[in-house]
């Protein structure tokens, strides 16, 4: 199959919206057609070639790959609604990477903006650098966040990771901001680093695991036990962890696991072990 190479040819100052940059939408198109594909820069509609140099080469894997080269931090909706194939961003990506994605894969070597994997239904997103806020969230006002798939962030993530998440998994190798798992009903979030706080706020179900430090546990979480391992997707993370259930205010059946060794200040909850 083919690899489509899009290299940014000029510095971008205005927001560029290019949801068209997705294997599904480009795979049938010739280079000429790709060049004339319409995208938005600010309030003007222009041809993709005004921003990118387009080229292609054939490769041996059986799916279409899009390689985006250059600083794309102003470019939004890269890989939106992707169902198959892959997108590789060599550099930073803007907001809404992989919005509505249901299959295929997106790889970002730099940082990704906020709303990474918004309304994601399936597939895989991996970010080498940091991600912004609302990773795997839904649109304002809905209770439908990420529905499925996998997001892996090697750096840090911002606030409200997995907001209103209903399934799938998010792994953050760095630190997470406030409220990972806010309003989530299912799925799992693993933070290998530390968390600013309020993990699992208003969660109804699902799992949040914090391997690093977290300053406090929300009062609406009840201490259950010390567990040796915590289950994340289909792997077991070695603990031990303090395990809490909540958010009780939402009659939540969610589970929050916090590594014992990184959080000596939470020793207070052990007094509930006997009870």
């Amino acid at each position, binding site marked *: 199959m083919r690899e489509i190479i899009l290299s940014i040819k000029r510095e971008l*100052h*205005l*927001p560029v*919206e290019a949801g068209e940059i997705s294997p599904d939408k480009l795979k049938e198109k010739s280079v000429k057609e790709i060049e004339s594909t319409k995208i*938005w*820069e*600010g*309030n*003007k509609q222009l041809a993709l070639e005004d921003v990118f140099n387009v080229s292609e080469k054939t490769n041996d894997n059986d799916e279409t790959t899009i390689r985006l080269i250059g600083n794309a931090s*102003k470019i939004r909706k890269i890989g939106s609604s992707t169902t198959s194939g892959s997108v590789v961003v060599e550099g930073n990506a803007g*907001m809404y990477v992989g919005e509505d994605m249901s299959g295929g894969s997106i790889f970002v070597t730099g940082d990704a903006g*906020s*709303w990474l994997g918004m309304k994601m239904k399936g597939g895989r997103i991996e970010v080498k650098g940091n991600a912004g*806020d*609302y990773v795997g969230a839904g*649109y*304002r*006002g809905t*209770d439908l966040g990420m529905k499925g798939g996998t997001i892996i962030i090697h750096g840090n993530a911002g606030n*409200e990771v997995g907001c209103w998440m209903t399934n799938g998994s998010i792994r953050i190798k760095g630190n997470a901001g*406030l*409220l990972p798992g*806010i*309003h989530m009903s299912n799925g799992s979030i693993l933070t290998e680093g530390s968390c600013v706080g*309020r993990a699992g*706020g*208003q969660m109804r179900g699902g799992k949040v695991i914090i391997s690093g430090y977290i300053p*406090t546990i*929300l*009062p*609406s979480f*009840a*201490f259950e036990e010390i567990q040796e391992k915590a289950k994340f997707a289909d792997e077991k993370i070695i603990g031990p962890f303090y395990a809490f259930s909540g*958010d*009780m*205010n939402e009659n939540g059946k969610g589970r929050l696991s916090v590594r014992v060794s990184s959080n000596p200040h939470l020793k*207070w*909850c052990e007094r*509930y072990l006997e009870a």
Partner: protein
Amino acid sequence: MTVLSKKIFPNVICTFCGSTCDDLEVTVEGEKVLSVRSGCSSSLSKYLNYRADRNLTPLVRKNGELQETSYDDAIRRSAEILANANYPLLYGWSSTSNEANRVGIELAEWVGGVIDNTTTVCHGPTLLGVHDIGEISGSLGEIVHRADLIIYWGANPVHSHPHHIMRYTSMSTGRFRLSRKDRKMIVIDVRKTDTAKLADQFIPITPNGDYELMCALRMAVRGDELEQDVISGVPAETIEELAEAMISCQFGVIFFGLGLTMTEGRHRNVDVALSLVRDLNARTKFLIIPMRGHFNVGGANEVSAWVTGYPYAVDLSQGYPRYNPGDTTAVDVLVRGDCDAALVVASDPISNFPVEASRHLVKIPVITIDPHPSATTPISEVVFPSQIVGIETGGDIVRMDGVTIMTKTIVPAPPGIHSDVEILEAILAHVKKIKMGKQ
């Protein structure tokens, strides 16, 4: 030289804060305000000094300096800047009339810009909370007549809404609540504010502790035991007492301010507060009302919502309304350096935005429409003087609880100074010419 006679205007609507008290008695002589009765110190200051320190002629920047120019030239320059912009920001809108807001949104449609109002840095997070949970609210008269428990949380009306307590809450006289002693007043804040000093109970909390305290309160209201002894600096017993007071009141209300929306968690502090009040309505009658700041920030939200569907932060760059605070909000648009021109109406972003946002404003052409010189006027490309709504011109405004009232003209405007509506309509007309010409 005509002989000026004294005129007394009763029931004048104060255009200072979101309380928009409508019982001012203003005595004027020609353009001079002689006295203001039954206003608070803030409205006194506004009405007695309305003539002090005004923009009096349109200014445009010529070789680096702001210089006087004709009204028509300023209109032309503004229209050209906006019509040729690729991603303009139209900001302000909360200290002018609904009529001006209506023109402003049509202008935003024609120039393909982002239109945002000052909600974005006051109760924007409140609206985000509402999107997720809803709102359980009422008009202020409901509080006057029925409320026997009044809670101010992260709000300091004595300073921000000076007559709020007297007219609408603890000290007001209603049909079923005759006096202060018929009501309990509780203040929750990080400082013992002048409002707290008037309360029956003051509960001090640690900064950024609102979300945790709210969670604990919901637990207590549900009757669940608290595992932690102290939450956000408040002992568990105090939280349980507070929950009991909320459940056992006949009609309670929480007024909350920027103490929730500006601290860590922002809209989630409001989200959980709304959830608390929603829970409480299974036990008793309880409302929650945000303390809206500017006198017509409510109107800016209402007009934006009925024209576009969204209350603020509306991006019209692609020809139809799009909305996602955090992306389409003024501070984010500026900090990302996305916009290439700005129109500022009746607001002073330089005095209200974090410095990084202001640094981008300095770099782009800014058109400012404001009765007074502000921190934003010196950095502007074009400056329009304008009439003060509620004093020199009328118009509809929306009180903090969503009640729309019509302000009236009480003194003549300085000669040659137009209203926001007139200025915006002139710019819009010129923008239409340019755009139609291009087609």
